[in-house]
């Protein structure tokens, strides 16, 4: 059953009481919340995802977003995120309840799913090959990711690249795409049909909203992809679109530094990471126009098999 098949009243009743069981990529989540904006966010963004009765299904992560039970909650409403009954973060203003759920889920996965090498990077796929987009905040990574998945690329993840330690394949986790500040109106203008939920203001990341993942990406969320490219995007006002090869060794070092669990898994992380880099073509990518950027990515994906990475 898909989440959109639950009536709004049923979803809210379940969320308040037993919680809902939700499947996202390789993980199952149990989510409980009495907060209206969390119910609304799930309805708006997770409609295509599989749900089950929370009492009958095993879940990898049990999470909740609820108001703290203190007097303060009346004076200045807040919410807290809990994972298996533990609260790893300080409470946030009520307006940030939905982003807090998404950030909390990212934390759960990046702190616990060590059967993957997990890199802090967006990842999209076309024609069977994945493009990994690692980049610091402000580089235009989320905007580019949103533009690509609205233009025929499959969303694997906007935040966590999950590399299977046994196979080297990249697993999909096509949760909503987090958009920040100027990228929100930019993506609305780029694709008026894209659904972007209500923005939360004054968060640690500025104004944040989430874009619903494309239906096809959710439908194919159990299909892994082979690494194809590692591309470092950099949005620069007025820049001409430019794709430049970059050092594989330095790319590996960057990925190792930006992996959540590289140090934790030791030599295995080195083996998995270097195997990935060996298969992938590595580039620096500068752009200012989203449509031109997407055209460059499309050309990469459509290159003849002989020109592809690994050949």
């Amino acid at each position: 059953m898909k989440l959109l098949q639950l009536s709004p009243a049923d979803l809210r009743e379940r969320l308040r009481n037993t919680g809902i069981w939700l499947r996202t990529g390789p993980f199952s989540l149990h989510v409980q919340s009495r907060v209206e904006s969390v119910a609304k966010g799930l309805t708006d963004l997770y409609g295509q995802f599989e749900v089950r009765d929370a009492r009958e299904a095993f879940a990898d992560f049990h999470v909740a977003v609820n108001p703290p039970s203190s007097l303060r909650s009346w004076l200045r409403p807040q919410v807290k995120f809990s994972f298996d009954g533990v609260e790893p973060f300080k409470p946030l203003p009520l307006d940030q309840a939905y982003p807090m759920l998404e950030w909390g889920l990212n934390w759960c996965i990046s702190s616990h799913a060590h059967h993957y090498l997990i890199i802090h990077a967006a990842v999209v796929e076309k024609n069977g090959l994945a493009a990994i987009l690692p980049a610091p905040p402000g580089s235009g990574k989320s905007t580019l990711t949103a533009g690509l998945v609205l233009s025929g690329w499959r969303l694997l993840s906007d935040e966590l690249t999950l590399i299977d330690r046994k196979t080297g394949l990249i697993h999909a986790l096509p949760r909503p795409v987090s958009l920040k500040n100027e990228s929100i109106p930019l993506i609305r203008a780029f694709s008026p049909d894209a659904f972007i939920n209500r923005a939360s203001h004054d968060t640690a990341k500025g104004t944040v909203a989430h874009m619903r993942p494309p239906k096809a990406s959710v439908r194919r969320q159990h299909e892994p992809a082979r690494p194809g490219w590692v591309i470092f995007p950099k949005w620069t006002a007025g820049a001409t679109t430019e794709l430049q090869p970059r050092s594989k060794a330095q790319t590996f070092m960057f990925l190792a530094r930006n992996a959540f669990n590289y140090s934790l898994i030791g030599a295995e992380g080195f083996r998995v990471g270097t195997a990935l880099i060996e298969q992938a073509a590595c580039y620096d990518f500068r752009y200012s126009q989203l449509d031109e950027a997407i055209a460059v990515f499309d050309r990469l994906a459509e290159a003849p098999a002989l020109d592809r990475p690994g050949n």
Partner: protein
Amino acid sequence: MRFQLKQFGSEAVVYDSESGDTHYLPPLALALLQIYREHPRPSQDDIVRSLTERSLFDSGLPPKTQVDETLNGLRRIGLVSPK
């Protein structure tokens, strides 16, 4: 084995299982490491000659200084034995 080395073209990355650290070896460091693996006690003149032929020096510092600094780096990591 303490070190795992993966070469990408003229550069490499090295994992040290003792410290858990990962190191980047630029072309000069990788070439120097290869010289030491093939000839454990090469003369500095031989090293400079070999690396000059491969155009591996920056223009900024004298080649001998670059060799010394790089060699010290490789020794600190443990990839080349101390003097």
